[in-house]
């Protein structure tokens, strides 16, 4: 199975690990990521204002490219996923946006939200299957107590994202179980870490990170995983006191599949 792949800006730079291990693990799991040629940055935030069109175009270009190849579109970064999935939803359901975007783009055939947008985790769950994944694990992360940090972008708004139960998600916990570790469920795992304000309002970000980390620690988590480079940055950079190890889920995936040098 070949998927169109939208890596996004950060995965080409600060979050190379997220990207590298996603690709490597895909090979090991029997699917292929074909990077969309000349993809443009999704913009990082979904343009909420209903009159914003230009800021949606990069996503539509990627989506239309995937459609032309007849492939599903995969993302790894939570923010890219959020933006592209929601733009796709607009293209499928919002008449005004459909018309204006297509008028602007002038594609041979109008794009009307036909492409299926999947997060890498959804591919693991729905296409590969966590049971199958568990069978391919050669280096189970036995004994590691891992808290899943979902954050906000993957889950909400659930009506559009359709990713998991927004208030009691299980996909990352199931993933953690599949790679042989022990998931730690804690209350703040779907609360925002304050990533967006970490540039200008450090105090605000710090107090939010603190809430997340202490909730996770209280439940016995020893490390966290995330799919979002911004969460990764914020959780590690803006923690007061003793921090926690935070990894991208793809790193641990690669580790469990035995394709990453285990760093001590």
């Amino acid at each position, binding site marked *: 199975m070949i998927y169109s792949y939208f890596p996004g800006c950060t995965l080409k730079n600060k979050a190379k690990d997220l990207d590298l291990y996603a690709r490597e693990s895909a090979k090991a799991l029997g699917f292929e990521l074909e990077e969309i040629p000349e993809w443009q940055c999704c913009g990082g935030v979904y343009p909420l204002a209903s009159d914003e069109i230009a800021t949606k175009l990069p996503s539509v270009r990627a989506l239309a490219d995937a459609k032309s190849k007849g492939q599903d579109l995969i993302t790894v970064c939570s923010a890219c996923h959020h933006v592209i999935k929601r733009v796709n939803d607009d293209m499928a359901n919002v008449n005004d946006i459909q018309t204006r975007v297509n008028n602007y783009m002038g594609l041979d055939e109008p794009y009307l939200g036909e492409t299926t947008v999947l997060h890498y985790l959804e591919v693991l769950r729905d296409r590969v299957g966590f049971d199958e994944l568990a069978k391919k694990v050669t280096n189970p992360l036995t004994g590691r107590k891992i808290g899943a940090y979902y954050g906000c972008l993957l889950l909400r708004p659930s*009506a559009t994202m359709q990713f998991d139960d927004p*208030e*009691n998600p299980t996909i990352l916990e199931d993933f953690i179980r599949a790679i042989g570790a022990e998931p730690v469920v804690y*209350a*703040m795992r779907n609360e925002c870490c304050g990533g967006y304000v970490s540039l200008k309002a450090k105090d605000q970000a710090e107090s939010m990170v603190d809430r997340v980390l*202490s909730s996770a620690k*209280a439940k016995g988590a020893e490390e966290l995983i995330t799919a979002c480079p911004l969460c990764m940055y914020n959780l590690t950079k803006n923690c007061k006191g003793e921090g926690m190890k935070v990894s991208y889920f793809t790193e641990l995936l690669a580790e469990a599949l035995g394709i990453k040098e285990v760093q001590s």
Partner: protein
Amino acid sequence: MQRIGVFVCHCGTNIAATVDVKRVAETLLKEPGVVHAEDYQYMCSEAGQKLIGDAIKEKQLTGIVVCSCSPRMHENTFRKAAERYGINPYLVEIANIREQCSWIHKDKEEATEKAIILGRAAVAKVMLNAPLQAGTSPVTKRALVIGGGIAGIQTALDIADAGFEVDIVERTPSIGGRMSQLDKTFPTLDCAACILTPKMVEANAHEKITLFTWSEVEKVGGFVGDFKVDIRKKARYVDMDKCTGCGECQAKCPNKKTPNEFNRGLNNRSAIYTPFAQAIPNVPVIDKNACTYLKTGKCGVCAKICKAGAINYEAQDEIITREYGAIVVATGFDTIKLDKFNEYGYNTNKDVITSLELERLMNAAGPTGGHVVRPSNGEDPKTIVFVQCVGSRDTTCRGKTYCSKICCMYTAKQAMLLKDHYPWLDIHVFYIDVRTPGKNFDEFYRRAVEEYDVDYIKGQVGKVSEAENGRLLVQASDLLDNRQIKMEADLVVLATAIEPNEGVRRIASMLTASIDTNDFLTEAHAKLRPVESPTAGIFLSGVCQGPKDIPETVAQAGAAASKVIGLLSKDHLVTNPCTAKCNQVYCNGCSNCEKVCPYGAISYDEQMVIRFGARETTRVATVNTALCQGCGACTVACPSGAMDLQGFSNRQILAEVDAICR
């Protein structure tokens, strides 16, 4: 020559605001055959009907078209009016310019155009209407009540007291319903059991009432006055006649791992069980999904221990068929599932409970003997948070759009009772609005605030999660103080929305009773016929029709009973004269119609027919109008057009088609 009168109703502003009623009347007056047209504020009113009567007399009308609300609403009203003023009731046609026009269109021009076309179609049809005479059919003098809660019991008692036989079909092992699960009832704080149990006993003892517990309605056939109902008596595995209700079997049953439905899963029950101590009948059932013997053939403890020899593992479901003149639906409600409201942590935290679960905890016969504890650890709570409107008034697809009506009052009740028992409790109620319309209701709620110091906070809860110390962390807003609250609590009680019981849709479709988008059964008229379904012979009692508290339910149960009594008191019912009719001159005798008739209403025999001037003895169809219900299947099966449906004849429908398309 036909002389048609057209009457256009304003329905206040319901129609007139969107449809130019004057223009409709003026335009239709120009239609051939129409000799009179007028509009009026409320055609269904006495004055409106009189207008029709006057026109019938003055203009010698031979047919009437009323442009108004749905014929499902007032067709009968206008037919009766026509009859009263001297013309056959079946010479009336309704053009539905409200539900199917003014209410769905905004543009006045467009709506008026459509109303005219609908009116024109009705005129075209009524020109071809023939006077019809209704026949009669007998009434079976027995009623069926589906559901044995307080609504069903009250309805059954009232009907039985009037001297008619009543059967109650209840799908659980005992009658009693939701009310039997409650502790005390607002606003008088009577104990629910104290007022319900005598009624249950009375229903059981009443010579006119037959109880079918652990039974379900399987199939419904027939029509008002003459329903045929198959009732599935599920295998109880306990002989009702032999069992003495001693309870030994339940005590000795080794398999006690099934969540107790009656206690909302707060504890477990045995595989052989009665749902509660006062169950009627006091005969247990064996849960075949739990019983070790029925699953594996090993055990048999209950059979060994039963001195009466009442246990019968070989029992089978039994179908019995009974006839009824009327059917009352009293299927009640349940609380909604909270799977889509995980922010409240109901599925992840044992100390988050529904209000019905709290009823069981507070009930002296409940799983904790009436001692309210934290289900997670059995400890006494110190702080309790009530969350109102969980799943009610929710227009997302997560919940119900309606107000569940009973929550504000029972929350006040529960808060006060808790304070009575445990004065040290700290109780907070998060509300959007407190709704207390009802006699002594607001006074009741205010007592909770003013005498019991229950803390009512105008605001909602955003999230309930486990605090680091194991208590619950409630994050909420206080809109009056404009602050966000993060409060620890030991118990969170969710005032969960109520919805009609599961399976009511199946029952409604068996009965062909209308049901709304929320699965509440629809009444024939929201104001004027609130306890009748639009389907003749079907009546509604209790929450199956809409959220209600106990006094309202009992009142409606009595009202439904009085409607049933009115029906059963008649010896004959007037039947629908819109039946099929065979024009034997054109009948080929081919039997196609006979094959598709669901009622066996068509028969064939050799008859003398005068056909094109010659006498001929030939095989032709005859319709038994007492059996025919007027579906029209035969009319399409007939290749020669000999079979036609009175009131919906080929010519009438073709005329409507022509009028609409022209």
